[in-house]
């Protein structure tokens, strides 16, 4: 069965510092990977997906199949990036079902 691991429950950085939120997955096939974000008192929303190879709000994530990782990175963190971040995957067999990690709470300090 597929699994998503986010090893850090909490991550705290200072404004302007680089940030990397780690995500590892286990799945023998080719999954689709996503990052979802939940800002305080807001609903869960899609941040980016690996197939789009896009940068959203300065965040990027590269799928590394060799290391089965999909880490989220931003070179200069902003206070408004403080939020809960969830890594998720969809597998080919059930291409509608998101499997989420437990999430990482990012705090960007002034």
């Amino acid at each position, binding site marked *: 069965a597929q699994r998503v691991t986010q090893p850090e429950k909490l991550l705290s950085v200072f404004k302007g510092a680089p940030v990397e939120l780690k995500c590892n997955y286990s799945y023998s096939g080719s999954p689709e990977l996503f990052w979802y974000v939940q800002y305080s008192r807001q609903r869960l929303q899609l941040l980016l997906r690996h197939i789009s190879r896009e940068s959203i709000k300065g965040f990027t994530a590269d799928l590394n199949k060799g290391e089965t990782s999909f880490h989220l990175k931003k070179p200069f963190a902003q206070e408004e990036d403080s939020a809960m971040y969830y890594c998720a995957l969809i597998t080919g067999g*059930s291409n*509608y079902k998101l499997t989420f990690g437990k999430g990482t709470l990012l705090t960007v300090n002034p």
Partner: protein
Amino acid sequence: GAGVSQTPSNKVTEKGKYVELRCDPISGHTALYWYRQSLGQGPEFLIYFQGTGAADDSGLPNDRFFAVRPEGSVSTLKIQRTERGDSAVYLCASSLTPGGGTEAFFGQGTRLTVV
């Protein structure tokens, strides 16, 4: 509406009671999903509807849980004989079509507390 709407936003019920949680998806979205998020965990899949039918209910934890979507729009998640372990945030999401290529939009959730 502008987004996925869930009612109520909070529900407190006594152990053993029956509850219904409602989800209004984005108009025109054929795919609808229910997830459950327990404290400290990520959302966990419960059930997926394509139109009116439950295409995958493999995530429902037991037969106390049931969901319907009779007209292919609004969905109701029903929990019988609630237990304290059912306390969680229940999330509904919808997408235009199923599949990872189509973004799933989430509601704000219903926080269920069983006392």
